[in-house]
């Protein structure tokens, strides 16, 4: 243990806010929160803003830099996070960083050799190898040269797909995707919405079906797919794990009409309303907005005066959640 000092022994010179207010640390998300007038607040910084004045003991994390006066400044706009001495800023509108196991929605941009390039709102396009998709019909076999020539019949350029992040094969941070499950594959007959990746809350399930017959796929990368709930057909499920371009050509896609289409619009506008108020997007908050928007037409939801009203419940939910977590932290001995 010689040469290593425990954090608790060392007094850190942290910023003014910490002295003025009671500083709490959410242990789950590591977000630094302050309590002012009984309301919990996170510390939001803009590029160049001071985070720590005397940062000789602080560790300079992502989104921060040290200037010549030994001050720690933010290099992005975002929320301050602290893990012991490590101070970092989580940007709010950054591109999708990517994590193995995430469900993502992406758009095919290019087909090269035996791989697809997929736009997933990350810094660079993700890669999906021919070997990491299921073939139409679900047959399990080695991919041949012929399969390579027929790649466009599986996913063509501009097609939307849902996939899982498989790995991070290179040091440059690019991601590799896979669709080796019946849940993944091509997306058809629905609406695509793009939101900030940071707003999509990590959940156990990113495929969600609402009671009113709308299914959403909340991609961790901020790409969201909304469609009508498909009736589960056991036989079809077994024989055809997912649609391919060839299948779609054969059986004309069902036209979504009336109430279903209205509901899809409603979900879409609810998600955009949440984004405009910078609220987390997950089934509970989407439902909150939809509940509030009952009695109005779906097109009214996008009006600038209406958006704050219909997101009221969702805002209250988030505020309450933050307070509950605050209680836990206090009880935990902080």
């Amino acid at each position: 243990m010689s040469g290593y000092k425990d954090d608790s022994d060392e007094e850190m010179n942290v910023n003014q806010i910490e002295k003025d207010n009671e500083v709490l640390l959410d242990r789950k998300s590591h977000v630094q929160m302050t309590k002012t007038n009984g309301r919990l607040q996170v510390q939001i910084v803009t590029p160049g803003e001071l985070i720590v004045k005397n940062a000789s003991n602080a560790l300079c994390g992502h989104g921060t830099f040290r200037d010549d006066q030994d001050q720690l400044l933010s290099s992005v706009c975002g929320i301050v996070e602290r893990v012991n001495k490590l101070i970092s800023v989580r940007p709010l509108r950054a591109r999708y960083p990517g994590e193995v196991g995430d469900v993502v929605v992406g758009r095919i941009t290019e087909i090269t050799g035996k791989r697809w390039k997929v736009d997933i709102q990350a810094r660079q396009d993700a890669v999906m190898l021919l070997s990491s998709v299921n073939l139409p019909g679900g047959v399990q076999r080695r991919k041949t040269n012929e399969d390579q020539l027929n790649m466009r019949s599986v996913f063509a350029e501009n097609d939307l797909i849902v996939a899982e992040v498989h790995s991070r094969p290179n040091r440059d941070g690019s991601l590799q995707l896979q669709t080796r499950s019946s849940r993944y594959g091509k997306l058809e007959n629905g609406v695509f919405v793009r939101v900030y990746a940071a707003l999509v809350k990590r959940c156990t399930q990113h495929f969600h079906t609402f009671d009113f017959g709308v299914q959403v796929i909340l991609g961790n990368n901020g790409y969201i797919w909304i469609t009508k709930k498909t009736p589960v057909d056991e036989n079809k499920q077994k024989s055809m794990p997912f649609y391919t371009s060839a299948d779609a050509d054969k059986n004309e896609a069902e036209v979504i009409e009336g109430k279903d289409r209205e509901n899809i619009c409603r979900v879409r506008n609810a998600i955009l309303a949440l984004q405009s108020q910078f609220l987390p997007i997950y089934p509970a908050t989407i439902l909150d907005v939809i509940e509030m928007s009952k009695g109005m037409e779906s097109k009214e939801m996008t009006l600038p005066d209406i958006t704050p009203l219909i997101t009221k419940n969702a805002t209250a939910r988030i505020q309450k959640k933050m307070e509950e977590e605050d209680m836990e932290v206090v009880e935990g001995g902080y």
Partner: protein
Amino acid sequence: MIKISPSEKQFLIDGIKQNMRTDGRSRLDYRAFTVETGLVAQTNGSARVKLANNTDVLVGVKVEIGDPDPDFPDQGRLEVRVECSPSASPEFEGRGAEEMNAILSAMLRNMLQNARTVDWASLCISPGKQCWIVYVDCLVLDSAGNLFDALSIATKSALFNTKVPKIEVMETSSGQTEIEVSDDPSDFTRLSTASIPISVTLAKVGSRYIVDPTIEEELCMESRVTIAINSKGNICSIQKGGVSSGINPSEFNKMLQHARKIGLVLLKELDALLDKEENNDTSTKIGFAR
């Protein structure tokens, strides 16, 4: 460049057929727009228009004393420039925006140059020698479809906001004219903007047409008709664009009627918004903080 898959396209087209677009609007619904004027201190008049928080254009008007156009010696001069910023779309980076800039500038110039829109003769100072030059500079900050309509609304608002300094013309003994511009900033005249038209763009998708297309809908459209409407409900200019072979005359008549109706509603809305802006003090302005 925004991309769209064939299936998404089909979904949009089906929605238009059923009169329920993806954002919940019906075919002839316009997106809500916001107008803010007087945001750029260095200009004589400016306006920023946003269509549903997505399409975002900023227009600045600067007036200057200069030589009149030799073809129209007794009128003021108009210079229009549209610039699509790379922040609107990556395709506008470098020289990518040049073509779009040229198209939009030409359309806007044609719409404004019409003698009846602005009283150009009132901008003449001394015939053949000196006149006011009105520079209309447009900056496209974000593009989510229907750029030209947004530009036309913003231009009308910016011209409405424009303050032309008062001048005094004096004849010197040698027969030369001398101009004295008033130093007092509160001493100004306004342009007559009541008869400036705004444009309504109708996009034809399949056998139907829609108003105020989003950028995704613009990818589905076959042809586009931009119709300029003034406050009297008269049509000032028509321009057809797009790739399709053409539009049936009887359908075209219907489109004109719809455009006229929508244009009049928009103009009324815009006038109300501009009046409100005019009476607002600067402290309530949000400007670029949003």
